[in-house]
């Protein structure tokens, strides 16, 4: 429960208000392995702690990467950190994406906005083919072409990965899709009985995507969501992130839709 001292190794501005930090542990060359979908508690000294998903490659054992949107006091403090600055880290916490379910199946990775960050480690893992997915498809909706996370990396991956990008608002340079992510999902040829879906993004977006996936024949237990709630202790003790009978920090943040449908559809929970 005591934060370990890390230092900022790299800071990259993804787009205005969203940045990626690469952090290394002081005095340690190797870090504990993490599972795609897990998160760390990042402590901006003097300000506070915030739960942030790991967004780098699980194979990279020397650095943890976190992509952060500057929104509250703690993330604003993290945004001010520069290379060499100290940061407190607890984790990794939570369960990850159930990567053992993908063998022989069509994997649909559906991301919205900065929800792409917790799915990126999953993409790294699935790209090495060891998990035996029959096909991997990424559907990614962003607000604007300038707000597509990891764009150059996605362009490099386009040869080996079936990627559908769409933006809510295009600009004069954008030659791709304009519209919401549910549209390409609706028209996609998906074998619902053989597919498994991993979603992360605003809850509204996930809600509409789930409706589409269900009409495509996916079962509720084959749709996995990464949830976000106000996590404090990250170990299921404080109760801040309680969601129905679950603690998002300990039982999640990844849940199958079938297991949380009652809570997911309950307003104001």
């Amino acid at each position, binding site marked *: 429960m005591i934060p370990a001292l890390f230092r900022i190794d790299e800071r990259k501005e993804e787009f205005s208000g*969203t940045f990626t930090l690469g952090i290394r542990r002081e005095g340690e060359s190797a870090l504990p392995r993490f599972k795609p979908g897990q998160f760390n508690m990042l402590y901006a000294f003097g300000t506070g702690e915030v739960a942030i998903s790991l967004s780098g490659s699980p194979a990279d054992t020397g650095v943890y990467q976190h992509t952060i949107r*500057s929104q509250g006091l703690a993330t604003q403090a993290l945004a001010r950190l520069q290379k060499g600055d100290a940061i407190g880290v607890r984790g990794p916490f939570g369960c990850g994406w159930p990567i053992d379910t993908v063998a022989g199946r069509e994997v649909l990775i559906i991301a919205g906005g900065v929800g792409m960050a917790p799915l990126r480690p999953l993409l790294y893992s699935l790209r090495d083919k060891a998990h035996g997915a029959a096909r991997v498809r990424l559907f990614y*909706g962003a*607000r604007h072409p300038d707000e597509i996370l990891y764009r150059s990396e996605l362009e490099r991956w386009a040869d080996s990965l079936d990627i559908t990008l769409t933006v*809510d608002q295009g600009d004069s340079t954008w030659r*791709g899709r304009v519209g919401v992510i549910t549209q390409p999902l609706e028209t996609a040829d998906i074998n619902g009985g053989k597919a498994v879906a991993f979603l992360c993004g605003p809850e509204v977006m996930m809600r509409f995507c789930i409706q589409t996936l269900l009409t495509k024949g996916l079962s509720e237990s084959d749709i996995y969501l990464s949830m976000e709630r106000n996590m404090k202790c990250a170990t299921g003790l404080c109760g801040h992130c309680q969601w129905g009978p679950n603690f998002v920090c300990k039982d999640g943040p990844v849940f199958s839709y079938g297991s949380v449908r009652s809570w997911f559809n309950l307003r104001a929970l």
Partner: protein
Amino acid sequence: MKSMADLLHEHPFFKGMDESHLDFIAGCGENHIYNAGDYIARENEPADHFYLIRAGQVAVECFVPNYGAICLQTLHDNDIFGWSWLFPPYMWTFDARAVDEVHAIRLDGKCLREKCETDTAMGAELLKRFARIVTQRLQATRMQLMDIYSQQRPPLDPGQ
């Protein structure tokens, strides 16, 4: 080479439609190819057709003076667009521009409109199918309006 009726038969929009209706609609259709940059429809011009995209990307746009065209949505393979031919004053409300080479079936809405006046069963069938598309586009537009990926979230409503 597939006939127009075969092409329509294969499209989900026409799935389950009465054969005689489909044959009539096929008689109102013709294949067209548009080059990148071509305008398929122009705002405020007569809307006498609707389109089934076989291949390519179409941008639905609105021209804003002193700014240029704003793309509201793009449409793709197998999408249907154009319902202004169904309702008075039968004028396009937006531009439709081919982003790349577009292969489309152009259907004569004016001819179908007249047929639907006399064959109400066919009219009802077509309206039902178009209503579904209109609903899907409206839902998508509402989601766009919510701007869900924005960093600026509205404050919580204390009444909720």
